């Protein structure tokens, strides 16, 4: 499969989850595990252009596919607009949910480039954050969509 633009190949146990493969075999530790019931979304990556919870996909299911993780989001050192907006709007504190939250936000904006606040809130419902109360995350997504200026504290 392709992961963040690089071709990789390994033999894995059939039960290996995609997130385990990314973290343990490829060292892509930017993607993290936050739960064991696919509720938290911390492990969200893109598989063939769609956001998936990588704890809910077997590595073998991604065979031949294209995976993008948080580590492959910036191009040539230039942050993706969603990454930039998360920093600018203080959309993260401890940062543990952030990789999944950003990947989900990117997917959300690809589907709906100008979401309303309600659409953003519904679109991120599958990703839990315990620090921010979501308010600045929602602002970040709105800002990344070009609909608003940055947050003024």
């Amino acid at each position, binding site marked *: 499969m392709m992961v963040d633009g690089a071709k990789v190949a390994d033999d894995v*146990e059939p*039960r290996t989850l995609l997130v*385990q493969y990314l*973290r343990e075999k490829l060292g*892509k*530790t*930017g*993607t*993290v*595990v*936050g*739960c*064991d*019931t696919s*509720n*938290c979304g*911390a492990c969200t990556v893109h598989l063939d252009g769609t956001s998936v919870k990588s704890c809910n996909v077997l590595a073998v299911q991604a065979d031949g596919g294209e995976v993008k*993780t*948080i*580590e492959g*989001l*910036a191009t040539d050192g230039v*942050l993706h607009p969603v*990454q930039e907006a*998360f*920093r*600018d709007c*203080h959309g*993260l*504190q*401890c*940062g*543990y*949910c*952030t*990789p999944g939250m*950003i990947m989900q936000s990117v997917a959300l904006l690809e589907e709906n480039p100008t979401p309303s*606040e309600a659409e*953003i*809130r*519904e679109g*991120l*419902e*599958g*990703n*839990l*954050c*315990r*620090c*921010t*109360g*979501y*308010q*600045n*995350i*929602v602002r970040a997504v709105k800002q990344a969509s070009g609909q608003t200026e940055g*947050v*003024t*504290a």
Partner: protein
Amino acid sequence: MTTLEDRPDVAPEIGRDRRRKEDQRLITGRTRWTDNITLPGMLHLAMVRSPFAHARITGIDTSEAKAATNVVGVFTAADLGESQGVLINAWAITEDQVTPTHLPMAADRVSFAGEIVAVVVARTQAEARDAAELVDVDYEELPAALDLKKAAADEVLAHPELGTNKSAFWQFDSEGAGTGGNVEAAIEKARTDGVVIEREFRQQRLIPAFMEPRSTVVDPSGEQITMWSATQIPHILRFALAATTGVPESKIRVIAPDVGGGFGGKLQTTPEEWLTFCLANRLGKPVKYTETRSESLVSAHHGRDQWQKLTLAAEKDGTVTGLKVDLLADLGSYVSLVGGGVPVLGAFMFNAIYKFPAYQFNCQTVLTNKTWTDAYRGAGRPEATYGIERIMSELAAEIGMDPIELREKNWIKHEEFPFTTVAGLEYDTGNYEAATAKALEMFGYDELRAEQKRRREAGDTVQLGIGISTFTEMCGLAPSRVLGSLNYGAGGWESATVRMLATGKVEVVTGASAHGQGHETAFSQIVADRLGVSFDDVEVLHGDTQIASKGLDTYGSRSLVVGGEALVKATDKVIEKAKPVAAHLLEASVEDIEFSAGRFSVRGTDQGLAIGEIASAVFTAHNLPDGMEPSLDSEATYDPINFNYPHGTHLCAMEVDTETGAVKMRKYVCVDDIGNVINPLIVSGQVQGGLVQGIAQALWEEAVYDEAGTLVSGSFVDYLLPTSADTMNYEIDHTTTPSITNTLGTKGVGEAGTIASTPAVVGSVVDAIRHLGVNDIQMPCTPERVWKAIQGAGTGGPATEGAAMPHFDTDEAGTASTEGAGA
């Protein structure tokens, strides 16, 4: 000698909404969570945990697990003996506190479901977990003490050998302490010619639920044994390991790398850390343990869990005359690191911002066969704030006075500060009038009250309620003398070091180890201003006991107000050390040297040197005053003289559907006074995140146990963390009354939102349906509970039993959970 430019960017850093230094790594996935760490030859642990709340272990068969492929060993308490160490309670709240011995791994009896009985070591995590399934443990079930009130009556013993579940009784009495009058006399008088309000509130059990599951790695291969842990308290952890394992403190290095949230939940020394430490040493190999979320929810400590009986005495005009508080606090199965002390922290806060002439606080801590409890965001103060703010609104309702007016009648006026409270604390500053006036205006209080009245008169099925919380809290833990007087096992100081590097950069070492708060950014702003250097030239180091050798870590909203003050003192020492050097180089006398905006100058001349130039001169040491030590580096350890007291006014408007019990928040306004603000962007994040945790206690979260003592809400499917779709935008603002207990004029902010919001939210739900005869709804205020309260009108809210989740069948689940009535 030059007349170099001052710092080119002269705008003050303090008060600026700097974007965080921490974020570049976190948004690109370049992170160092403990579970990311992989070392050569590393082994992995999996725990075998008891499924029973209380049982005798009659046999453990590890043979099948030991025979599994790539399993290195399987260990029980018998195998490890004393080498596993013991977990400490650092705060025995009374001399005669009953404290069960807390082994990392149970030997012959388990006392909560989730307790570790065996540990498997294997070459991979998956193989360790597979083999853990093969360990065969025989249990003989024992009756479990689960219900807090029944446990307090010693009906069933959580630890039979102790003979009682009652751990400690702690009292504060204002008459005895000389800080106020006799509370019983005040209540008696009010019974004859005043008003007495008696209420019993339930603080349900919560789970901190930090997003990063706990993880520990121990590498025994160096001269020092290194432990990485997802902890809030690397320094306390190191001390406790040394104190209980016999390994010298100097041979232990603890590192808290990137830590993904804590909220008090990682203010703990854990069985998992002790077992990882023990097994790495025993096997001579690096060992890692990372918990699953399901393990985290059942075995990381829980928070809150109290019954609160409040008796408030007042005159008929609403002037309060006395407050008596009787608490039952559930410790769970062991007295954890600070467990028994958490409710005691609330003792000083029930009287809140009000001028009670008489006050008594009684607290009984109780052992049960549930997961042990300890600090959760606010730790004792949210519980106190909930009790007092709810009962003040009850008093207002009883005498027919607007709840804002009632509070105003009783609170400390701004001109009365400093004010010594009936609990014996000296509040340094505050202005409750200003914060409240601003909040009322932002909220549109009068219009919303008018709308509420219209809807009541029209008999709308959806009613409007307004909840109020005019809170204060004590933060900045803590003056060491105060902690000593409370029998706490450590001090409350904090340490900082400032190092001036030869290249003009500045390294700042703090003992307050962050886990998401943004210390690196805020502390850089402080140092940039004090030393007149660029924000980007300051590097903040923390979280490694070999780098930050002294510290007492991050909790209790202490980092800025205690750790920040230590930083101020260390920078002042740097400046004082640099002055003689500047005088020498500028050929002036020290008395004539002035320091401003990063520049030492000779009074009355245009001659001067930048601090970087002094640092460089000290580095080369070619031309220093005779006998001068060639170093500007400075250290300071600061012990606070007092707590500080943030306050604020929170207002919540809630719509309640009287036919379905569904609640919908319409507006939430808060105006907090946290003194001077270092970084408003970080503050907004702390307040918003704090609010949501407090609102979640009011509406969604609860750790629910069934009648066998099994945690039913044991995964994120059942333990309801709020999502982006459950929350909304909260309107936050500030008034500013600087604290005078620290140089920067700051107050803590990390816990304020959580402390303040819960009573405002529950108060708004109750206010919406008070006319239907409801005066309480037990938290969390699920639609089911609200609906039942409406149906049972007149009884003050019926027994709200059953699971927190509306999808449980109430008839079946009702036997489980939260011990009864919400009345």
